[in-house]
């Protein structure tokens, strides 16, 4: 081989190492669009197997094992790290690798638009009638009157803080955005483009001039304002958290003392019992999520998936998940048991409280079409590029 060829091949190999290290490579197929076929009208015999993509904490043995015994469907779970990862997993292998997913609102519409999830007939789910009215036809899983999946848990992204360090108790998101924060270096935030909505929600309350109405429907100027706020915040952040365990470890070690959190994070930090923590819904309001079990339109085990959707709608199952995960059930029949089990502690769950749910800005996919006829909003890919801009330390 000549020197040039050797040089070229060495460079190619090294470049590939750099690229291959960053992710396993597979190219997505082009957009399908629309839905495939009608919803199945009955459940046949189980296939003996079920593979799910889920948020960590959503598929624990204590409620998965009884399901496996009842139905004979052996459950395999792949935990998605964030919504983008979940969409990616559900489209891999033409959507034939996984039967279903616990999709949040910022994933569900993308899956529906891509034709990756199947419509369902809610008359097959007797418990659907007991679901909170505001979750029976929500825009994040019901399109043109067609239902794509059954609701599971919902909850807020509230403000969590270490009560030893953070004094006085915060009541505003200003404590994680203020450039002069006394907690600089110990602030944390969620490492995902969707977190831009938290900044937008804060600006909606504190800078009415910007005219933000919905934190997920931002014009170019509004997005820039939120991004500038997050660039300021970048200097305050010690570490971002991407997976929920990052935040649990961070609070336990004292590296993080204040920041956005999921209820499950607080549960674990309290269980670890290393630092005292408290959570608050700040006066500007909170973003949050309402998750839906959705079935892949190419599910290899559709019957087991339908059984799983029926099972997870059961009030006693939802109570169990809620008590473990710290999220709120969608089935109102779970509430009496939850309130009985937890007593006063159940208050923060707001079980069955449609008004409280309405006050949460639930995650949804930012789209160019703002819903008010104009289409000058910034879409999710613009949000992703902006998030990278923040992370570049600009």
């Amino acid at each position, binding site marked *: 081989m000549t*020197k040039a060829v*050797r*040089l070229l*091949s060495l*460079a*190619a*190999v*090294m*470049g*590939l*190492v*750099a*690229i291959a*290290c*960053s*992710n396993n*490579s597979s*190219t*997505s*197929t*082009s*957009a*399908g669009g629309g839905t495939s076929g009608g919803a199945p009208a009955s459940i046949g015999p189980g296939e003996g197997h079920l593979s799910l993509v889920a948020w960590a904490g959503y598929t624990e043995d204590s409620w998965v094992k009884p399901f496996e015994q009842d139905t004979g469907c052996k459950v395999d779970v792949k935990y998605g790290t964030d919504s*983008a*990862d979940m*969409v*990616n997993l559900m*489209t891999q292998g033409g959507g034939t690798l996984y039967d279903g997913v616990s999709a949040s609102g910022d994933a569900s519409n*993308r*899956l529906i*638009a*891509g034709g*990756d999830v199947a419509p369902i007939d809610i008359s097959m789910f007797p418990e659907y009638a007991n679901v909170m009215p505001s979750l029976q036809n929500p825009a994040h899983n019901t399109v043109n009157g067609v239902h794509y999946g059954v609701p599971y848990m919902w909850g807020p992204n509230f403000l969590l803080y270490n009560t030893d360090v953070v004094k006085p108790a915060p009541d505003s998101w200003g404590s994680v955005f203020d450039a002069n924060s006394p907690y600089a*270096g*110990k602030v944390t935030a969620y490492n995902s*483009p969707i977190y831009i909505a938290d900044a937008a929600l804060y600006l909606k309350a504190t800078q009415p001039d910007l005219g933000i109405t919905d934190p997920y429907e931002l014009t170019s100027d509004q997005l820039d304002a939120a991004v500038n706020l997050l660039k300021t915040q*970048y200097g305050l*952040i*010690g*570490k971002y958290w991407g997976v929920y365990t990052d935040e649990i470890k*961070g609070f*336990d*070690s*004292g*590296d993080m003392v204040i920041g956005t959190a999921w209820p499950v994070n607080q549960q674990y930090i309290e269980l670890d019992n290393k630092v005292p923590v408290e959570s608050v819904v700040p006066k500007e309001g909170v973003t949050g999520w309402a998750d839906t079990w959705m079935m892949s339109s190419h599910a290899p085990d559709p019957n087991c998936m339908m059984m799983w959707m029926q099972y997870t709608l059961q009030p006693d199952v939802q109570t169990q998940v809620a008590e473990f995960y710290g999220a709120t059930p969608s089935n109102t029949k779970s509430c009496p048991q939850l309130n009985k089990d937890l007593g006063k502690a159940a208050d923060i769950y707001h079980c069955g409280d449609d008004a409280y749910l309405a006050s949460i800005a639930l995650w949804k*996919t930012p*789209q*160019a079409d703002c819903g008010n006829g104009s289409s000058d909003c910034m*879409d*999710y*890919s*613009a949000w*992703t*590029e902006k998030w*990278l*801009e923040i*992370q*570049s*330390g*600009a």
Partner: protein
Amino acid sequence: MATTEAPRGSIRRRSSSFFFRHPKTRRGLTLAAPLTWMLVVYLASLLLLLANAFWRVDSLTSSVVRDWGWRNFDTVFSGNWRTAFLERTYYLISLHTVVMAALVTIADIVFAFPIAFFAARVASPRARSAIMIAVVIPLWANYLVRVFAWKAMLEGGGPAEAFLHAIGLTDVSLTGTTLAMWFTYCYLWLPYAILPIYASLERVPDSLIDASGDLGAHTGTTFRRVVLPLAIPGIVAGSIFTFSLTLGDYIVPQLVGKGSFFGNAISSLYVSNPPLAATIALLPLIVVFVYLALARRTGAFEAL
């Protein structure tokens, strides 16, 4: 012992004489398998990656739409000469990554040279093998384990914090800092710097050093004029490893640091915008090409 001579006219005999008479065919068949592997797996995936950079993503479904265009290149390469013709975000990411890779490389060479020199030229054979085993052993441990070990050392509640407190620096935290990443990288890639330098120093003939002394050169002069020039190819070879390994890494910023290097930008965009991720993946390729072109001039490839 009887020789196992195949009977005249058997398949084995005939094929063996065929390959003897056609050396080119023999060579072709020997190399066919590895070359196919190289071409199909490496080059084809590289070309596919390049093709991806010309596609775009549907913003709602984030599925790839295969209509050709330069839009991703417009997004990334939209700066002027001040930002190396990159858009500001990608310029900053490139700058941070390349500067980190350079600092890690310099530090590793500085740390590695004395160790390699001692092992190759000073230590007794016994001590030499002990040193080399100590250098190589960490490479046998999983890469993630080594990163997590440093994460545990540097973050809150760890030994680094205890040390800083002990010397009176109570309000300094290493968590998520560039310094923490630098420590981790220096540790991770040190063996890759030591080994090639050791190999090049070991090959310096004793006779050259004796000759230098006989001609009146001091130890310092011998080192500067004889040993060091002969070690340069090894140093450059080591620096290729430390530089390119840092350039391609995305775990350390995620676990130990904060912010985005090349790998983080690629992996975070990969799920939501594969074509843009593919375009960004060209940046480290360009950097490595430039680096290798410079390294080639020092003769480092003859030392590989």
